[in-house]
């Protein structure tokens, strides 16, 4: 034993004395020496570990690339370029070039080359811009290993003129060797470009354009709209100018940009919105849209346009990109991608002193109540969270106004926070309205929505609770401490509040009375509906018999031609009758099943066209083949007969308009989806609806028939009751939808547009299984 270690020591000395010291050999000898120690044993690391770790830590190639991009971000790069060279086949080259801080030789050796280094754990934010580091700890090198079989790192640190270049052949790391004995070349090189270049050769995977794009999506949350107006913060630290990445593919046909910040997203924004509050609390908003030729600024203070400064807000910047997913504003190929992306990444994120504050702007977080407002649809321009990509920066180093809750689950929602909320929401909504107006769209719903009695009662109840709490608080303060004046104040304010409630309750009562009158009429109609339902099946069966019998009379060779003509006429009239009754039949047959389910608009249209087309044709009205602008048209769960009711009411309406106009009628149905609302457009070429009636037609008991043809309002004409469109509107609004008159398509004079929320994928799945 002793002999063997002596032998090794001898060799070691000899090698060290050699002029050009063979370091790998020295290492091998040292290892051997260590192993020969009869007293102690230590762990050794097999070189195959690198490969194993690479595979286990970074399973997917997209994640691997994303990790390397995140490293660039962590190194305070402003831009990273990714060039995929001939990666359409295996063995291509991927270059990742950033302009970050770069690495010194020491940083490279102690950081990059040291497995399980604690750099990132110890320094969770980046040096220069204080970025929250995004890279997973110590994954970068394995990501590089995962991607190709050779890695060249060229890096130039901020402070150096010279850089380092290291080449690592991953294939050298074979099992059976000692990890530390495998040495990679590192040389000093001349380079003036600051930053780090990774060259990954012998790519292990094939990269399609789509895969490159997907990878880009992985890192999108690193991207911030920029620049946020101000250059530096008070501490004198440079302001983060943002981070961009460009993904390029190149081969013998040249190179093309697959994805970059500009080409992917922001160029499709309809407008850029910026809001600032200066150090004196004055607020200024800017909106810019090249496409709409809009470039405007406006002030929003405490009250709209007021000149007084805000109470709490100082040094606030907001920047948001506004997206509208409509065909004319966004090419179809991009539209779906961006919509999908912003479904998760959209919204307005909040940064305090350069740090993201969660959960504001996280997926499913609606802190500015944008989604809520969009659903209410009193503002018609789309303005859900998925319509924005933006951020608000708050500078409040002392944490005077904006401080995080102790649980780190957001900011303390104090008055300053309320002011921030109001300021941001107002500014954004104002911009949305400006865009709608510029686009020639109706910015707000025509009639401000009547507050429903239940809603109003809930309001009262909430306010009463508040009042009661206030009173309780006063009591807790201790009666002794209340001055007479204060007590009087409480009494007066309580009295005022109660008076307010009284008038509110009175109003609600009036409203309920009106609703009851309507319900009365609906009850009569419902009764009628039940009678029809009761007999509809019998009518159907009898109708079939009558048709078959009259056919055999017509086909009978022994009857005279006059009789044949009469029966023939009877038959064609009867067929018309059958057609009409067929429509109730489908509506009623479906009615048996009371369960709500997502409805495919295609089914609704097919059913309508099948039953109505023949009879419409006989009345001189052609129903065009429905137009589908898209096909994923499943509504939120509804009752199938409700759609029958909607379309049949609109059809009856159109038919009257066409008869009044005395033209050859035409009706067109169209459907598509915009912003997760399914729209149905029902157009006719009748006499149109005069502007002054546009909002009134949806009111109960308003009828155009009674204006134009007073005698037409008879008992047999149910739809002359003035409830047709009201019922349609009620059905639709019951599902948070809307109906309004919009500009008709070419060749038509009236167009109703119905919007109903689309169903979610989960809901659909639930009902289809």
């Amino acid at each position, binding site marked *: 034993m002793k002999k063997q270690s002596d032998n090794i020591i001898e060799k070691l000395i000899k090698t060290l004395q050699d002029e050009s010291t063979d370091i790998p050999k020295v290492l091998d000898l040292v290892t051997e020496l260590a192993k020969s120690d009869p007293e102690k044993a230590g762990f050794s690391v097999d070189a195959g570990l690198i490969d194993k770790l690479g595979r286990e830590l970074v399973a997917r190639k997209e994640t691997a690339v994303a990790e390397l991009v995140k490293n660039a971000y962590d190194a305070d790069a402003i831009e990273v370029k990714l060039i995929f060279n001939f990666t359409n086949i295996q063995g291509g080259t991927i270059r990742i070039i950033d302009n970050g801080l770069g690495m010194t030789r020491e940083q490279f050796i102690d950081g990059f080359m040291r497995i399980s280094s604690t750099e990132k754990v110890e320094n969770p934010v980046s040096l220069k811009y204080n970025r929250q580091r995004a890279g997973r700890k110590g994954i970068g090198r394995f990501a590089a290993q995962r991607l190709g079989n050779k890695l060249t790192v060229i890096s130039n640190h901020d402070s150096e003129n010279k850089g380092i270049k290291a080449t690592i052949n991953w294939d050298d790391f074979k099992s059976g060797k000692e990890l530390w004995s495998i040495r990679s070349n590192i040389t000093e090189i001349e380079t003036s470009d600051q930053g780090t270049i990774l060259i990954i050769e012998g790519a292990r995977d094939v990269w399609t354009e789509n895969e490159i794009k997907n990878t880009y999506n992985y890192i999108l949350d690193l991207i911030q709209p920029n620049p946020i107006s101000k250059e530096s913060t008070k501490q004198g630290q440079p302001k983060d100018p943002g981070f961009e990445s460009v993904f390029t593919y190149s081969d013998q046909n040249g190179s093309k940009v697959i994805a970059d910040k500009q080409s992917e997203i922001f160029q499709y924004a309809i407008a850029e919105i910026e809001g600032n509050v200066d150090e004196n609390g004055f607020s200024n908003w800017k909106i810019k849209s090249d496409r709409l030729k809009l470039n405007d600024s406006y002030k929003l203070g405490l009250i709209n346009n007021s000149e007084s400064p805000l109470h709490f807000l100082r040094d606030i910047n907001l920047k948001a990109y506004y997206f509208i997913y409509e065909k004319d504003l966004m090419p179809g190929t991009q539209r*779906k991608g961006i919509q999908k992306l912003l479904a998760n990444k959209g919204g307005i994120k909040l940064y305090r002193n350069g740090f993201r504050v969660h959960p504001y702007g996280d997926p499913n977080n609606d802190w500015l109540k944008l989604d809520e407002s969009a659903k209410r649809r009193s503002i018609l321009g789309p303005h859900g969270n998925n319509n924005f990509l933006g951020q608000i920066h708050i500078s409040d180093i002392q944490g005077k106004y904006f401080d995080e809750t102790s649980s780190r689950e957001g900011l303390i929602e104090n008055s300053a926070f309320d002011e921030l909320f109001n300021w941001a929401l107002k500014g954004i909504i104002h911009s949305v309205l400006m865009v709608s107006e510029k686009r020639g769209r109706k910015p707000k719903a025509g009639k401000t929505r009547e507050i429903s009695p239940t809603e109003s009662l809930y309001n009262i109840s909430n306010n009463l609770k508040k009042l009661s709490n206030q009173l309780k608080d006063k009591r807790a303060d201790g009666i002794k401490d209340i001055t007479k004046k204060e007590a009087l104040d409480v009494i007066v304010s309580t009295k005022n509040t109660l008076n307010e409630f009284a008038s509110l309750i009175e109003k609600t009562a009036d409203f309920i009375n009106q609703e009851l009158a309507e319900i009365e009429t609906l009850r009569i109609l419902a009764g009628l509906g039940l009678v029809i339902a009761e007999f509809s*099946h*019998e009518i*159907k*069966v*009898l109708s*079939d*018999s*009558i*048709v*078959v*019998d009259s*056919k*055999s009379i017509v086909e009978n060779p022994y009857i005279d031609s006059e009789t044949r003509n009469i029966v023939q006429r009877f038959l064609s009239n009867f067929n018309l009758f059958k057609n009409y009754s067929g429509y109730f*039949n489908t509506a009623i*047959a479906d009615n*048996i099943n009371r369960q709500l389910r997502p409805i*495919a608009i*295609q*089914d609704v249209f*097919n*059913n309508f066209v099948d039953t109505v087309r023949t009879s419409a044709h006989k009345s001189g009205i052609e129903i065009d083949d429905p137009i*589908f602008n*898209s*096909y*994923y*048209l499943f509504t939120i769960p509804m009752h199938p007969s409700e759609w029958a009711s909607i379309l049949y009411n609109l059809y009856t309406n159109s038919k009257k308009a066409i008869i009044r106009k005395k033209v050859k009628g035409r009706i067109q149905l169209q459907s598509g989806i915009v912003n997760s609302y399914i729209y149905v457009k029902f157009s006719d070429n009748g006499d149109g609806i005069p502007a002054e009636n546009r909002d009134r037609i949806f009111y109960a008991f308003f009828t155009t028939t009674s204006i134009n043809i007073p005698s037409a309002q008879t008992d047999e004409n149910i739809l002359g009751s003035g409830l047709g469109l009201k019922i349609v509107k009620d059905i639709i609004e019951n599902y948070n939808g809307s109906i309004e008159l919009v500009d008709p398509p070419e060749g038509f004079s009236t167009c109703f547009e119905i919007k109903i929320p689309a169903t979610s*994928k989960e809901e*659909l*799945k639930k009902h*289809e*299984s």
Partner: protein
Amino acid sequence: MKVKYLFIDDDYDTIYSLVESIESKSDDLEIKCLKPEAELSDTISKIESYKFDGLILDWKIDDTPNEKGQRPSFKTSTLSQELRSKSSLGDIPSYPIIVFSSRQNLNRFYSKDSVSHDLFDLVLKKDDVEKESEKMANQLVSLVDGYHTITEYCKKTKRKPIDLFNLNSEYDFLFDDERLVEELTSDPLLPVYNYAKFILDQIINPPGILIDEFYLAARLGLDLEKSDEWGELVNRYLSDFFYKGPFHEGWYRWWSILIERWWLSLPDNPGPLQNVHAKERVNFLVKYTGLKHLITAEPEDDDSYYFWVACAATQKPLDQLDGFVIKSKTRYPWQERLYISKKAARERIGFSNGIKIDPLEIDRYHDYLKSI
């Protein structure tokens, strides 16, 4: 001799015209209407007092009281079950039993009573009589003929029903699937209606071993409506492959494998049908038969010309790779899955008549709808 059916309905007066309309379409068909008695046993005695070949039953027979003011106290399925049991004991012969009802009642009641489905050979919809009375008449006659044929085979010759298919070496493929052989050669012999039901539901109706006219046209690449000489082609060249087993008079089918073999036996044929572009299939057919008025079917959208199936919604030829699988009751390996074209899928043609996308295809279907 005419085929005689009894039609049992509590209220046949109102639909007698429909029944009569079917009856009038065939010289070989006679239908007698009968009201059910209040009790099951009385009803059966009443039925058995007549000489008849098959039964047609209304699905809801307990709505209207009879002359004595009594409503039947049993359901149609009970009556049918009792009759099937009696025939399985050999007390009465096996004969076809058919349900006749409105689409609405079928959807509402019959479709949910799935255990009863095996009791009936055929479901006829009142709503379809106006358009399909002739087909219905043929099928009613054919059902009785088929039952006779099967009964004769089983009773007199003691041969197994599999021999019904006129087997010779050409039909070797029928023996490829043991399950098919097993079903038709079971020992001991089962009541005839079992075989009838199996042949109708598992062999004739689903495309696979046998194909209907639409599938045949798709395989040959032809547009059925535009090809004026379709009848000529079928009668002169394909009659040998026409299915001549039980029920063939009511259900026109061809042996799909024989068609393929025939094609490959033709001199200078361009190769297996499925691998040949429809235009080439038709060019070759025109050249071979000399029939000029055979027109190539055009695919919908930009779909492929390598037609193999007929769209279940539009009956138009379709390369199944272009379509979506729909839900069907395929139970055996020789039955092919059913498809609809992309166009039918996105416009949801036929969905209100019960077409449903196969659960395994739902995700792909939704992705497709979203992508367009």
